[in-house]
């Protein structure tokens, strides 16, 4: 059964049509004690079916420890949005509701699409300040599905 409505699929396909470079989603799961891992997999399977530029790889956090290590992920389900390199974008939890929209936005931006879902990109002032950062910055944004 499809999780997305036909209208949503059309809308997402249209958005993905603006992707420039390939994007790889890495989904971190584990076999036991992760109820929402299945939901996360279903959502991502549907998403990657909507674009040739989008691929999905599933990594078992417990069984594929070595493979998972470079991503610095310690919870499941988690998603890393990867471009040519690792832009450092992670999602913790099944990407439904608000997270779904944010994930679409992240995919578009990482692919180099001219616009994400937001109206404008960051201001020149923000870009200048961010470019001057000289130590690791870990930003966690807590959200709920609604």
């Amino acid at each position, binding site marked *: 059964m499809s999780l997305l409505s036909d209208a949503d699929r059309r809308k997402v396909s249209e958005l993905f049509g603006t992707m420039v470079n390939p994007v790889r989603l890495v989904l971190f799961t584990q076999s036991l004690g992760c109820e929402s891992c299945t939901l996360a997999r279903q959502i991502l399977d549907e998403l990657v079916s909507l674009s040739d530029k989008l691929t999905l790889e599933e990594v078992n956090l417990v069984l594929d420890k070595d493979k998972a290590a470079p991503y610095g992920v310690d919870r499941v389900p988690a998603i890393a949005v990867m471009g040519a390199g690792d832009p450092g974008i992670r999602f*913790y939890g099944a990407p439904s509701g608000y997270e779904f929209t944010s994930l679409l936005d992240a995919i578009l931006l990482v692919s180099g699409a001219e616009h994400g879902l937001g109206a404008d990109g960051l201001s020149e002032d923000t870009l200048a300040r*961010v470019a001057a950062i000289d130590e690791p910055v870990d*930003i966690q944004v807590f959200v709920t599905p609604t």
Partner: protein
Amino acid sequence: MALASDHIRATVVEATEFPDLSRQYRVTGVPKTIVNGKTEILGAVPEETFVEQALQDIKTR
């Protein structure tokens, strides 16, 4: 912001799925942003305010 700097890592956390993290950072409303485990930003604030608060304790060149 994560895209604009190699130093930035941005994680979106679904608060209800990770109650331990929500408790650790005393998340009682969303969105709530935590920078480097300490700086807190409540609500959806304008970009300028967000950058100001998020980077207040961060070393810059």
